[in-house]
């Protein structure tokens, strides 16, 4: 069985380290990307099994990135777990409308992230 890959698009270095550690210990290969502008290209080049996407990124919103990923055939079927500090109903609804697989508000627990990643890639 090939290595399962997660692309973590997040700009907070300490959150990146924590998530990378948790998922790596569970056998995932974790690539990271921190800029909004080139995030879609990063998904194309890394071809991950799952994208973990922060909303507030430098230069581009996570919602716009999600929109682009769902509009392109090559990336449409990649599950996206969205992480955000803004957990209002309208934020969740917007993410769902754009096709997010799961929406998680900060602060989240390590167990929640791990279980969700396992569920989404199955």
């Amino acid at each position, binding site marked *: 069985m090939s290595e399962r890959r997660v692309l973590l698009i997040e700009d*907070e270095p*300490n*959150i990146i*380290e*924590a*998530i990378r*550690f*948790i998922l790596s210990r569970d056998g995932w290969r974790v690539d990271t990307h921190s800029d909004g502008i080139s995030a879609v290209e990063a998904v194309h080049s890394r071809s991950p099994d799952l994208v973990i996407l922060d909303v*507030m990124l430098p230069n581009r*919103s996570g919602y*716009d990135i999600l929109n682009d990923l769902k509009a392109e055939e090559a990336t449409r079927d990649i599950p996206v777990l969205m992480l955000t*500090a*803004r957990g*209002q109903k309208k934020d969740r609804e917007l993410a769902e409308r754009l096709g997010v697989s799961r929406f998680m508000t*900060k*602060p*989240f*627990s*390590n167990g929640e992230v791990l279980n969700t990643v396992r569920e989404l890639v199955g």
Partner: protein
Amino acid sequence: MDVSSPTGSRIRSYRIEKGIRQADLARDCEISPSYLNLIEHNRRRIGGVLLLRLSSALGIEPDRLSEGADLGVAMALSEAAQVFPESDAEVARSSEFANRFPGWARLIAALYGERSRLEETIARLDKRLTHDPYLAASMHTILSSVTSIRSSSAILANGEDVGPEWEARFQRNIFEDSQRLSETTEDLVRFLENETETELPVLTAQEEVDAWLTARQWRIAELEAEPDADDADLWRLVRAAGELTDDASRAYAVELLGIYASDVRLLPEVVLRDALEDTVITPLTLAEHLGVAPTVLFRRLASRSREEMGERGGTGLFACDGEGTLIFRKPLDGFDWGGARISEMLWPLFQAMERPLIPVTRLFQADTGEAEKVRATAVSEISFPDGYGNKPKHTAWMLLEQVIAPVETATSRAASAFDKTGIVG
């Protein structure tokens, strides 16, 4: 007070009698001065909570403002019943209830009014928490720090051997994030303490778009360069604007940008600049000379800065929709109108709305007593955004120009002739 006069007239009379400025009353009631102006001139019907708010701000009983006994209270009761349909309140009998039990009716209306006011305050605070750049950034930092601390500490507290290198790294991360958390919360507390006496800004979609356009000095350089921009380009431009905080503001901005792009296609800057260098004539004649609708020329002139306009002087631009609501306002800088004359200044706009396609012009003198004048030229247009056969859309546009030197041309003489016939207001 004439009890047979319409509600708006009564509001105006009480306000003037009590020496309250229109802008102050509008602010107290959390509506725009232009909307209050329309109410006072009986161009907008009001009732319910707004009527109660106005009566409270004026310090009089709501019944004295409404056109029938207890009408304001009865309308507030009806509104309350609609908000709480599960109460099965007998809406059709609200006037009867208000007449039979006036005290109870006033109490219910007052509680409903207070509830509406609190709801609006919560919505405003919520909007501010989301969109105020400082608060939003602070909340983001706090939640990110807490997330990082929670995750890192959970890894360390799990009891598993993570190895000395990771252990040191997570300890350092927790230390850094706790420091960041501490500093951000201290700053935030200081900020909120300083803000407690400050009134919260209430921005409507139009006010947000106004602020955005003002910051851009009413010129969209991107569309001047690329007037063939499609809807996706316009949305991209609007989404990049931090000042536009919700979908209503963005949609309104996209609508205006669509008009702007179309205007640039019809009248590019290079053509307009050449025409302005050649002639000093009224905008109506210039529009005819250029072969464009006057409203296109008005908007193009208003997109130019005071410096670009040179000797022609600065410009202002106002627009209202078919219901008389102001939908666009670029003030004319550096002209002292005095508060009371602002509504007078808007009359050509409303007159133009009543007479589609017939221009209305008017000269105003500055309150300073100097020779400086402002020329208002208004024209209304009809469009069919949903296609012919569907409801037409009426919009009136009014250009304001500083008239620095008298313009003695055939056109102005023709305009004077119009004045005499009464076609020009």
